[in-house]
């Protein structure tokens, strides 16, 4: 799929108009991560454009558990951040690399299963778990998951853009069936129970407060990693490859290597999030890596908007809120219908997700001088 097609697909008319009117001048190869260096401190790269709103959001995130109930901290806060991290890996690959990979949840699932298999977990009637110390299990799982992500990337990158969705979906569903049917390693339908976060330095990571901060730390790490990469030569090259691979090839960049490396980076993020997610759930089974979750991650990424890394987390928060409280508003049984309709509306009218819709609204109320 060509660069122009991609931008058409991902930019709504309002979004483009907003960028133009805002005079951002940042429509160069779509490096939306850059903003003009104006007010704010200049700590090199990342902190060049810190704004008051960033400080407010960070303060809110840090202080959140102190005024929210444990339920909200754990089920809403930690879950959204972990899912958001997986969706961030998808946004990184899809929004900035032009490769929408549906296998991110699979990579997260591989890491989760790794923690269950290598660490201490209960497979009820089968003695599969090896019971190694938790940090060994976690490190090995992340390594294996990243390797798998690289392999999946290698499989997908030699084909055309739209093939990527097909291939990664096929890989994802194949992994689901593997987990479902295999008993010697994956314990089939039962999966693993009692996969619990460890107690580190006397702090029990299963409690809502410490667990929330753990997830918050890694989400912030992922977010800043993406923001840094996007401004680094690697990220710029990646976006160039997204827009025009042939030209980049002619310029001497190894297109395939860059793409596979992007898959690897996204794989690390998804793997870390997968470990956090399995600790959150306390269990893992084929249902955790099945089609509905594979598609849910895509929905989260698109819902928030793939034009900026924060979109993944916004989408995750909205999704988790919908999922938890839909039953109070309408039948829980019709939750899928609601999600499907919301997704359809977003794709039809605001392909840039909530972020695009928000810029659309802001463009109707231009700020003073029209410069953002």
């Amino acid at each position: 799929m060509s660069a122009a097609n991609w931008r058409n697909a991902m930019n709504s008319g309002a979004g483009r108009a907003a960028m133009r009117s805002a005079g951002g001048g940042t429509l160069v190869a779509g490096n939306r991560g850059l903003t003009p260096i104006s007010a704010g401190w200049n700590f090199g790269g990342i902190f060049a454009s810190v704004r008051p709103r960033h400080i407010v959001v960070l303060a809110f995130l840090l202080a959140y558990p102190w005024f929210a109930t444990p339920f909200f901290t754990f089920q809403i806060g930690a879950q959204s951040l972990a899912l958001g991290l997986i969706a961030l890996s998808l946004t990184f690959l899809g929004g900035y690399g032009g490769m929408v990979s549906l296998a991110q949840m699979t990579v997260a699932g591989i890491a989760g299963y790794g923690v269950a298999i290598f660490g201490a977990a209960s497979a009820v009637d089968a003695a599969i778990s090896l019971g190694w110390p938790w940090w060994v299990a976690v490190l090995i799982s992340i390594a294996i998951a990243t390797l798998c992500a690289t392999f999946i990337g290698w499989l997908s990158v030699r084909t055309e853009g739209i093939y990527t969705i097909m291939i990664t979906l096929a890989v994802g569903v194949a992994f689901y069936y593997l987990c479902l049917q295999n008993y010697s390693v994956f314990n089939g339908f039962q999966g693993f129970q009692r996969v619990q976060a460890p107690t580190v330095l006397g702090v029990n990571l299963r409690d809502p407060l410490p667990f929330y901060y753990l997830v918050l730390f890694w989400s912030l790490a992922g977010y800043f990693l993406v923001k840094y990469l996007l401004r680094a030569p690697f990220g710029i090259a990646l976006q160039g490859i997204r827009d025009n691979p042939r030209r980049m090839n002619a310029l001497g960049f190894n297109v395939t290597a860059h793409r596979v490396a992007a898959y690897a980076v996204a794989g690390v993020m998804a793997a870390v999030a997968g470990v956090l997610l399995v600790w959150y759930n306390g269990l893992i089974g084929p249902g955790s890596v099945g089609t509905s979750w594979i598609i849910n991650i895509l929905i989260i990424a698109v819902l928030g908007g793939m034009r900026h890394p924060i979109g993944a987390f916004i989408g995750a928060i909205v999704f988790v809120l919908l999922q938890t409280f839909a039953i109070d508003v309408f039948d829980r049984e019709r939750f899928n219908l609601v999600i499907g309709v919301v997704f359809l509306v977003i794709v039809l009218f605001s392909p840039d997700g909530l972020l695009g819709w928000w810029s659309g609204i802001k463009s109707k109320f231009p700020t003073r001088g029209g410069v953002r």
Partner: protein
Amino acid sequence: MRRTFVKTLVATAVVAAFAGVAYAQQGQPVKIGLLATLEGPFAAGGADGMRGAELAIKQKNGMAGGRKIVLIKASSDAKPDVAVNATRKLVEQDKVDIMVGPLSGGEGIAVKEYSKTQPNITFINGSSGAQATTLVNPSQNFFRFNTEGAQWMVGLGKAALDRGYKRVMVIAEDYAFPYSQVQGFMSEYCRLGGKVPVKAWVPLGGKDYSSVIARIPKDVDALVVVLGGADAVNFLNQYEAAGGDKPLVGGSITVSQDILNYKGKRRDSLVGTIAGAPIADAYDAPEFKTFVADYQKSYPVSAGGYPSPSLFALVYYINMKAALDGLDLVKGDLSDGQKKYQAALQRMTLKTPVGDVKLDANRQAIGTTFITEVVKDKQGNLFNKVLRKVDGIDQMLGQPKEQFKMGTRDEPSCP
């Protein structure tokens, strides 16, 4: 004078406030959370389970222990993580006092693990029937008033041998509940001399049984089929179309009402199947007949109910009834972290439509099983006739504790 008046007023107000609080405690409704699978493979069973639970509340006019019952429903799709999320929301966000559910085996194990983090809330099972829930790492506040999968098959091994089935092949779904069912069948069947040359475990939701059917040995006398829902229907169809004619021995959900009611002609091949289950549609005890009549009145077929309540309806009814009867015993007092309530549940003898139920040390029910046979009535509907009723079955299935081994894919084995 004014001061005294004011002091008295304040004192009265304070006393009234405390009394008011105490009174409010007494009159405050009890919130009960109800979880069943309303999506996915067991959706039909889940809907009937909810009907059974609601029937129990309706029979007591929505009150128990002098307090009003408020029911908050949630649904899952047979996935353990969804079940735990839904339970967590009911317990921590909606602040239910008592939790009833879930439906399927894997969910039951996951919810039991969660219950350990909330010792002041009482968790009562819905219909999950895996042995491991109460046998392995049991939870102090998770109560199961229904017998589990293995207990439901006690007596079936002997009945199969009595019919002359000396060699059988087992075809069952590959997860915890069928393991328990097969263990319950085989521990008796093998001990009495039966042989099981082949065990075929099929993935849950797998539709293509051609490979399994191709593997059926010629010299088996019957097939022990422990499949539920759509899987059972598919298997029956494909087996008959492939020219199979061996008699069947059924697991408890293979001849449940939702299968006997499926819309297709092939169900006639089920007539004559023996099975073990906690429910038998034709059981003629008066308590059971009252239960069936109540169900049929509240949920006529036109409104979506089955002609006769299914296994899920009965089991959810029993568990909800336990919750309500327990409230009656403690007169609605759920203070002190529900310790009195949980002790009452542990001690009580529950009167159910199919007999009395008591709990063992792991809070697992000791109850009744029916050996049934499928017959067709005058209207052409299929139902389960009672061949035998076995009471007082505990989770060890009557075997000494040292000999008992939980059901897995490989255990028990007698080729």
